[in-house]
């Protein structure tokens, strides 16, 4: 049996307890671990063997539950998907996710994101509902591919931590929530785009985005929120032209939903 190479890992972790601390400070931990470990493994070893008072969230250890987002050397990352071997020979600085209030140590309060996700109505909206006994709504593989990528969002909020616009303007609905609106807008079973536009096509919505693209760079699920927002800007612009410049024009949202409803009888 071959042995795994061991490496030295030095962590510099931001600590803050609102019960006792007036301000946050860094704490240093030094350990040795197999090079295949992720930063989360190192944090778990610290908690089990060195300092039980260190607090962070985690669960799946396979980059799908979205619990363990943190700033690692200044970049938003899932700690279960950040390998210590990539930081060998350096100090790994671990901080709570940027742009969210700290509850304690590496635990941030996601309340703002949770509220914004709800505001975009991320669920199928239909004018007519058919009973289950009539079977599925038909959806071709091509129709599925129009939105599938955008349905992969794990709600880890790394894109909010990366987004300079969200950092400056906290009212911005933000990449993940807007992408979820786009995911449902693009779903052939949905008729809710007009309703979502009230939130999406505003200055808190897509028009706040300055297309820096940082959201897509950090996304661990390859959702590419930046492309979703760009597509939404284009369709929202077309809506405006139809409504304002074409005599008797109706909003594209209405038109699209009728077309789609027709698609799937």
């Amino acid at each position, binding site marked *: 049996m071959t042995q795994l190479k061991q490496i030295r890992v030095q962590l510099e972790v931001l600590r803050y307890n609102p019960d006792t601390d007036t301000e946050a400070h860094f704490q240093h931990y030094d350990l040795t671990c197999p090079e295949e470990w992720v930063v989360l493994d190192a944090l778990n070893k610290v908690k089990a063997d060195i300092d039980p008072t260190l607090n962070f969230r985690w669960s*799946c250890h396979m980059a799908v539950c979205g619990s363990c987002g943190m700033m690692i050397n200044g970049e938003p990352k899932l700690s279960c998907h950040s390998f210590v071997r990539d930081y060998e020979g350096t100090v790994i600085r671990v901080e709570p996710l940027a742009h969210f209030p700290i509850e304690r140590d590496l635990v941030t309060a996601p309340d703002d994101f949770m509220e914004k996700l709800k505001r975009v109505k991320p669920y199928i909206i239909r004018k007519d509902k058919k009973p289950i006994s009539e079977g599925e*709504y038909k959806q071709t593989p091509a129709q*599925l591919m129009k939105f599938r990528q955008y349905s992969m969002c794990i709600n880890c909020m790394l894109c909010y931590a990366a987004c300079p616009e969200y950092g400056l303007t906290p009212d911005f609905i933000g990449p993940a929530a807007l992408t979820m609106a786009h995911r449902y807008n693009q779903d052939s079973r949905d008729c809710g785009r007009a309703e979502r536009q009230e939130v999406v096509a505003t200055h808190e919505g897509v028009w706040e985005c300055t297309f820096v693209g940082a959201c897509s760079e950090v996304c661990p699920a390859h959702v590419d929120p930046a492309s979703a927002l760009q597509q939404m800007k284009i369709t929202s612009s077309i809506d405006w032209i139809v409504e304002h410049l074409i005599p008797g024009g109706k909003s594209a949202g209405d038109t699209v939903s009728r077309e789609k409803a027709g698609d799937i009888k």
Partner: protein
Amino acid sequence: MDTISTDVVIIGAGGAGLRAAIALAETDPTLRIALISKVYPMRSHTCAAEGGAAGVIKSDDSFDLHFDDTVGGGDWLSDQDCVEYFIHEAPKELLQLEHWGCPWNREADGSVAVRPFGGMKKKRTWFAADKSGFHILHTLFQTSLQFPSIIRYDEYYALDLLVDDGRCQGVTALEMRSGELRQFHAKSVIIAGGGAGRMFPFSTNGAIKTGDGMAMAYRAGAPLKDMEFVQYHPTGLPNTGSLLTEACRGEGGILVNKNGRRFLQDYGMGPETPVGKPQLKTMELGPRDRVSQSIWHEIQKGNAVSTPWGECVLLDMRHLGEKYIDERLPLVRELCASYLQVDIVKDPVPIRPVVHYMMGGISTNTKAATPIPGLFAAGECACVSLNGANRLGSNSLVELLVFGRRAALSAIEHMQGLPAANTAALNARAEQTQVRIRELFSRTGGTESMSGLRKEMMDTMEKNAGIYRTEEGLQEGVSKIHELRQRYGKVILTDKSNVFNTDLFQMLELGSMLDCAEAVIVGALARKESRGAHQRLDYVDRDDKKFLCHTMVHYQGLDVPRVDYLDVVITKSPPGVRDYSGDHK
């Protein structure tokens, strides 16, 4: 202590809890629903399920075939009235999810696609690539956001059920952010708290799978049923234990030993089928218990591949080709590349069996009701006796939908004509939780370390209650877990803060796991036969005369629990031979 008065409390906001919440809100919009979870709903472990969900939908399939596969797969320990109800509800629930937007894979004509899965005679597993559980969870969570009557209490750690007048009428829970204890008073309580796989050291389960819901019901007097049946998934990544879905084999991946032999043919699952042309219900599409046990035997024979993480066999998917792998198994490719640095397009990946699922749980009937009036349970935390001694892959994602909904309907039925609650009695019961938590904070002089105790528990479960078990090993395990439960009372909390104190939560979780672990190992010792996932080297045969019955484990405080038995419900399929020999009859 603040009191939250509501109609129904749901503990757990994964697949089963969310499905229950939506069913309650849809059935009666005036109901007040409190949905409590120790994590935000989308962190729930349903998200890690990969392969898919079984429901009869195609014209070549039938309810009878799904019934036979499930009952045989469960080695005749399933309650057949439950299976009957389940198979008929399954397609309705999967269609309901489709109507709610679940991105199921499709056929060219736009109908829902199905894939083959282990132990199933027909293709009937609906799937969303290899992220089926993830999409089910997010579809349910997002759908739930439209119902104003579902009030979520995210990151509340539920502690003790409030039972008075013989009825369950609420629960106490800690708000994790503030450390404040709250009590919830309700007419019905539904537990949907998930499994307890983290009692083992090598598990596909996320950190949150610590059996809190099971333990809570157990301490309140509900028996835990069939806990000795612990499912090992055959294909775990050898280092992290991450799940490589059964769909790897459903799509055509093969298992080979160090000599390149497809060894499953040597364990009653042959003859060999052509590579890349998987045949249903044989070879690599055998049931999980048989496949995991075969790997164990290959390791004993010296046919395994040595790796830094122990003895493994190889899962070979190279013949599927890059395009097909990326379409059907993108997560598997990514997991192997990231955590093991193996590209499955180019190389076979070493795997070993890994603890995956508890067939056992809180004893419930087909109405999702526990023996305690007012208390219902669904999902992995419950044992409704669908899965018997071995769950078939892709039945559990449907189980949490079918019985999540059923629990909601039963909760509503239970509410009708209830006498008024005795608030003073409930308050007094809640006060006992307060005392329990205060004692944890004020305890001094202990010498036990929590992480040390947790490791001893995990090592004991792996050594003494693994894939194959013996009288001697189980005796030793029972003594050890019993000892650990006594020592647990001497563990000292290092962190005394009120705010998001994960030292405290891990301590509480360890208590839950120890209670559940004792039920597993005591049940395993008492069951002197081999059936499904419970295999004894000293009692190698199934014994239908003595053990065609469910193990019921009853909590006795710090004493060893009491065990009795409940008959299996057989309606039309008498116990028979499990045949996975394909065409070779």
